[in-house]
């Protein structure tokens, strides 16, 4: 469904993504891990069509992004790491705005279900700036998914979120995955990755070093990672066993 073919991205004269070729199938759930500066967020932004690659091509259903970007954007729900919300508005106004701004919308039933699943109906009339980090994070996810997308791209969706909010988010995302949605998420938290992902991408220095189920990570670490050169990555991978 989504395919990277020799994709490169250069930012500030630095190769952030290096010749990456990878395929993501419909209904898959992929967790992306890697050290800071590995290119994870850039990879996700290229998938979301927020950034254009400097070379190589990204395909959606076999058609290059450049030829069907508007159709693709209707199917993609991208939730950035930053809280991309208007802080001065109430939750109600915020949802109203993003509904109006979108050219395609999810059904009222879907939106209502999402609001209840994330508990946002409790803070419906409060201003965003008055909400805690957890509520903001949930609203951030909600605002990016009001159009009921088939492909969900999440960059650290649970960062700074309390346990209750995290539970709400993960349960809801899991239910979406079960209903056939494709999920690609970046996280530093292994419990999130393990709960939601069928498959793992390990990124380092703009390259995908590993793609496969988490059970194969031990073998990958043993066979392909030099302890001296990959200290930080190894530390991250070992955290999953804690």
């Amino acid at each position, binding site marked *: 469904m989504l395919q990277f073919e020799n994709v490169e991205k250069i930012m500030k004269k630095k190769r952030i993504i290096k010749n990456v070729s990878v395929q993501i199938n419909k209904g898959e759930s992929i967790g992306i891990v890697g050290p800071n500066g590995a290119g994870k967020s850039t990879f996700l932004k290229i998938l*979301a*069509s*927020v950034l254009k690659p400097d070379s190589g091509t990204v395909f959606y259903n076999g058609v290059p992004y450049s030829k069907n970007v*508007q159709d693709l*954007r209707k199917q*993609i729900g*991208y939730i*950035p790491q*930053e*809280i*991309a*919300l*208007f802080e*001065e*508005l109430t939750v109600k*106004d915020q949802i109203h*705005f*993003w509904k*109006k*701004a*979108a*050219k395609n919308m999810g059904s009222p039933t879907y939106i209502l279900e999402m609001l209840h699943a994330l508990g946002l109906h409790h803070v419906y009339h409060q201003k965003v700036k008055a909400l805690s980090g957890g509520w903001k994070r949930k609203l951030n996810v909600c*605002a*990016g998914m009001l*159009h009921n997308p088939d492909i969900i791209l999440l960059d650290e969706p649970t960062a700074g979120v309390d346990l209750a909010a995290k539970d709400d988010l993960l349960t809801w995302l899991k239910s979406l995955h079960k209903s056939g949605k494709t999920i690609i998420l970046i996280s530093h938290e292994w419990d999130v990755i393990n709960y939601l992902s069928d498959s793992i991408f390990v990124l380092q220095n703009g390259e995908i070093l590993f793609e496969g189920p988490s059970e194969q990570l031990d073998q990958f670490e043993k066979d392909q990672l030099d302890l001296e050169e990959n200290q930080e990555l190894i530390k991250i991978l070992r955290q999953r066993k804690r």
Partner: protein
Amino acid sequence: MGTYLFLLNKLLFQNKWKLAFTILFPLFLLTVVFPFATSTVEESSIPIAWVDQEKEGFAETIGFRINEDPRIQLLHVNSKEEAIVAVRTGKVEAAFILDEQFNQHIKSGDIRKQMEWIRTSRSFLDTFVKEKVAAEVMRFALNSKAANDLQQLKRNEEDFNWEVAFQHADQYWEPEPLFQMDFVPSNSGDLEQEEAIDNLTIGLLGFWMWYTWIIFAGGLLPIYQWKEKGLLDRIRLRSGSIRAFISSFYLVQTLFYSLLFFLLITLTLTSLKVEMNAVNIYIPAFIGFISMLLLTMIVNLFIKKQSVYLMLIIIYSMLSFVFSFLAISSGFEKWWSYILPHYWFYQLML
């Protein structure tokens, strides 16, 4: 676009304190601070600029007689331009410019448009001087007219002396004129009145332009924050483009700050009792202000770093305000004055 306008309108009026400060601060300046800072003519005598290009004959005599009055202090200047600067800077209450052929015209009894009267809307005491000048001009002109008529009647008499006839006519003015002249308050016909906008008004209008410029520039800062937070990316993903959103944002900001600017101009002109002239003030203000807003929006669009954008606007607006004022009020004009929006406003206004 309606959705964006609705949202941006809400965002603009969300912070009530900021909004209140934006509007109340200039009103506070206008009603409390500026009245104490305005300069008025304090001397007991009335300073008047006097331009006499002939420096002899009737012109010289009239100047001498006017200057004899202890309540009037004549400042002899060489040109109309100098006189205008003196009026604008508040150095004098008003200026009188005598025609180049003043003596010849008075001798022929012609009193129309022989003198130019330059004042500001704040000039007050100069009307007294105007009366006095007009009386002197009228006196000489009528004497001349009488002597001329007599000369016509006695053109065959060889011993006729024009000067004697003139002096004879002059006796009808002492101790009181035989006929008192009835002035029409604004313009008597023999004096041409010209309105000049004084430095205080120019300075205040320029200050409001600078103030609205700075807060308009500050009002565009959320663009940088929205970009940083990924809001613009989210809008681009959801609606296909951010063009309509950015245009709506600029439109809402422009409308709000234009309204504020024109409100401040109107209040300033009202409090200074300056005639609100659309051609002289509002149209130049509109052109200067819109040019300034467009420049700011262009800088906002093309400068990627918030700190660089802010620094540029602060320096540019300060230069524009200060140097344009200096250029207009004291002739400190340089070629680069033409890149300052305040200068365009002043040039069009004056």
